């Protein structure tokens, strides 16, 4: 009897599985430490956005964190969506459209709070469109959200009209003075509201992931859809809800970026879907669904932003897409490697 219980004891994992499990859970923090260490050792001679001298001084850190707000607010919901085995390629367009809408509202005299809430509701609506395409019309998530990527981007460009590239002061209209305080003005620890909203959203999502039905149903849907359905879980509704909250957080990201840049740029979210995927993969979320942690993606987002900003100081901006592509490839390959390793042991 003894030998049976020993053999099948759940904690009796092989050494290899333990190592790979530990690695999967905590490597992201080591990466963060490593990146910070590298950046700390960098010395800047010249760069207009940043102070000279040590890269990691207080002003530079605040700068990075407030530039990061859009990505940070998106990373958590995007993680939950990927945990459920789905994906949203339209987040960049939702961001751009939200930025335009928010700027349009503001420039036409709508006060901060109504403009803010209205933009979030529009984000939810855009997410709901994605959800309906995927759940009701049964369109493959990649295709469905590729379609809306184009649709939403088109809508944003139409709103801006020809002649100008973005909604901004001019032609007799003026951005209200409060417009850029959400994304720039320090409210606590010199960090702007956009950062604190991202932090609050992340904390809420961590709780939802660990103690909420939505988090559990997302994991069940991504892990074994048949089992989830047979357990009476409405997987369609779960997925729809996730698309809606991704839409809302993409709208928040759009607001944050629009406020930071003081304009409503329809292309301000371009490429965001790739960055979001990169961040989530970097956080160790499995492409196949089921696995993944919101907090790890948040840390992943910090790493990516530190790297991108750090990179800006040494290489020209047009290297970015290539570098992000390479990092994605690396993350996807190591994701594959880790999951293979886990299976083998």
């Amino acid at each position: 009897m003894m030998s049976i219980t020993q053999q099948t004891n759940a904690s009796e994992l092989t050494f290899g599985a333990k190592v790979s499990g530990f690695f999967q859970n905590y490597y992201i923090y080591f990466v963060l430490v490593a990146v910070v260490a590298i950046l700390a050792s960098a010395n800047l001679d010249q760069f207009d956005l940043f102070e000279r001298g040590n890269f990691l001084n207080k002003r530079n850190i605040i700068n990075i964190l407030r530039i990061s707000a859009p990505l940070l607010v998106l990373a958590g919901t995007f993680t939950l969506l990927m945990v459920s085995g789905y994906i949203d390629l339209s987040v960049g367009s939702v961001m751009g459209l939200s930025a335009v809408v928010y700027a349009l509202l503001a420039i036409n005299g709508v006060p901060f709070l109504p403009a803010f809430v209205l933009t979030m509701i529009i984000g939810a609506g855009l997410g709901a469109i994605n959800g309906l395409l995927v759940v009701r019309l049964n369109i493959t998530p990649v295709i469905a959200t590729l379609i809306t990527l184009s649709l939403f981007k088109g809508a944003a460009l139409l709103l801006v009209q020809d002649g100008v590239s973005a909604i901004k002061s001019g032609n007799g209209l003026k951005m209200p003075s409060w417009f850029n305080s959400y994304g720039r003005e320090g409210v606590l620890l010199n960090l702007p509201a956009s950062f604190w909203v991202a932090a609050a959203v992340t904390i809420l999502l961590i709780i939802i992931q660990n103690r909420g039905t939505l988090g559990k149903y997302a994991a069940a849907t991504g892990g074994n859809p048949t089992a989830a359905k047979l357990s009476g879980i409405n997987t369609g509704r779960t997925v729809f809800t996730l698309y809606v909250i991704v839409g809302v957080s993409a709208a928040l990201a759009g607001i944050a970026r629009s406020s930071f840049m003081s304009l409503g740029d329809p292309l301000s979210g371009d490429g965001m879907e790739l960055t979001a995927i990169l961040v989530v993969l970097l956080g160790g979320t499995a492409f196949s669904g089921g696995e993944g942690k919101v907090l790890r993606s948040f840390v992943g987002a910090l790493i990516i932003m530190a790297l991108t900003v750090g990179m800006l100081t040494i290489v020209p901006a047009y290297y970015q897409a290539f570098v992000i592509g390479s990092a994605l490839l690396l993350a996807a390959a190591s994701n594959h490697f880790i999951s293979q390793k886990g299976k083998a042991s």
Partner: protein
Amino acid sequence: MTGQQTFTVLSVEELTKDYPGVRAVDQVSFVIENSTIHCLVGENGAGKSTLVKMLTGALEPTSGSMSVNGKAYAPTSPQEAREGGLATLFQELHVVDELTVLENLTLGMEKSRFGFLIKSDLEDRMIKTLAAIEPSIDPTARVSSLSVAQKQIIEIARAASSGANIIIMDEPTAALSEREVERLFGVIRRLRESNVTVIYISHKLDEIFELGDNVTVLRDGKHIATKPLSEVNGRAELIEMMIGRTVFQNYTPRAGIGDKVVLQAQGVTNKLLKNVSFDIKEGEIVGFYGLVGAGKTEIARALFGADPFEGSVTYKGKPVGTTPKEAIASGIALVPEERRTQGLFTELTIRENVPVMNLPRVSKSGIFKARDVRDASLRYVDQLGIATSSIEKHAEKLSGGNQQKVVFAKCLFSKADLLLLDEPTRGVDVGAKTEIYDIIKELADEGDAIAVFSSELEEVLGICDRVFLMFDGHLQEEITNGPDVDIAHILNVVTGGHEGDVI
């Protein structure tokens, strides 16, 4: 059993299921008593799975009725069956690997407020249920760290605690080791003690005798008997009830089996197979017969290079390759069990399907020659008697038998001279079956070696020259086909009987 009152928990009356041309279940009536382990046995095709599908709501009966706990019972979905108090342990497991044991147990039943989980007595109840049937499983463990057997027990615990008082288990030991089987039996007995009735389906007769209280035997869709196992006089009586006396066989010994051994397998061992050795001669048709999970498909896959194994297999004196590509190149072709998903490109036409396994044969510098492809397709349509209006017909539009012939054509075109046929006539109508048998015999007469992997005894005894009997990954016995083949003996062997058993 305790001295509690017995009553009928499930009764089936005149239950019938018709398929076009076949009556799968024919006016079956029997009752199951509460808190018993009730076994359901019968040969392949006896109607067990159709019956089970009707019980679980996956199929609707053509006529007849069922009742559970005295109430009329006519489920139209597994969900409804569950609500009626009847749960099924599916052969494939429905647990979420990424969640913990407890999270799996409460999945879909959790209590929440504003979308947040709240503690409830449900969790305690689940932990208690689990502890009662299998205390060694830690409720906080990740399911991915558990063995297949433990995952199965989690599903049983879910079923038991969701209020089901009948649990159907269909071949639950197919993927378990001996030790794990004992554990599962312990669980099943504890279920019986807590007033759950288990309907247990297994091909392994030893398990039936070890575990069961009562047994119901089906044969050719008909109900043969329901009685306490204590009144069954050993394996012999059970087997006799299962096969009756009417297994006819029409094998005629074939001339033209060569002396040359083309395939030699020595000590083939892998996850499922245990030290399997055999040979196949030129022009010979050999059969591998065994029940579900005996290892037939695994042998076919090993020979075809699709699964790794230890031991040696040589074909025409050379070791077989480790990939299907190498196997095809050396002249081996596999007609897989699931022809629609694994053997055919259903969206392509017959003409496009035929040359797939050997495109270089009709190609020049990477461009294939349309005329050659067309000629080859026409030739096989003619030779194999594929009933179609044109070679441009899409494979999915063909009947099962004709689809199978297209798969044959593919293999023949690849110039294979060893054909591995996994369940070659499954889902094929009677007429086409005979035609396929004729094709198999013709090919063998031309010198090809053929291995048929089948769970239909009639098929194996109808066409094979030699038959290898499989049980639980072992090749138990080799028999030479002929008029004096002892069918009861064969069934005894493939259901796990031992040599000393008296039949």
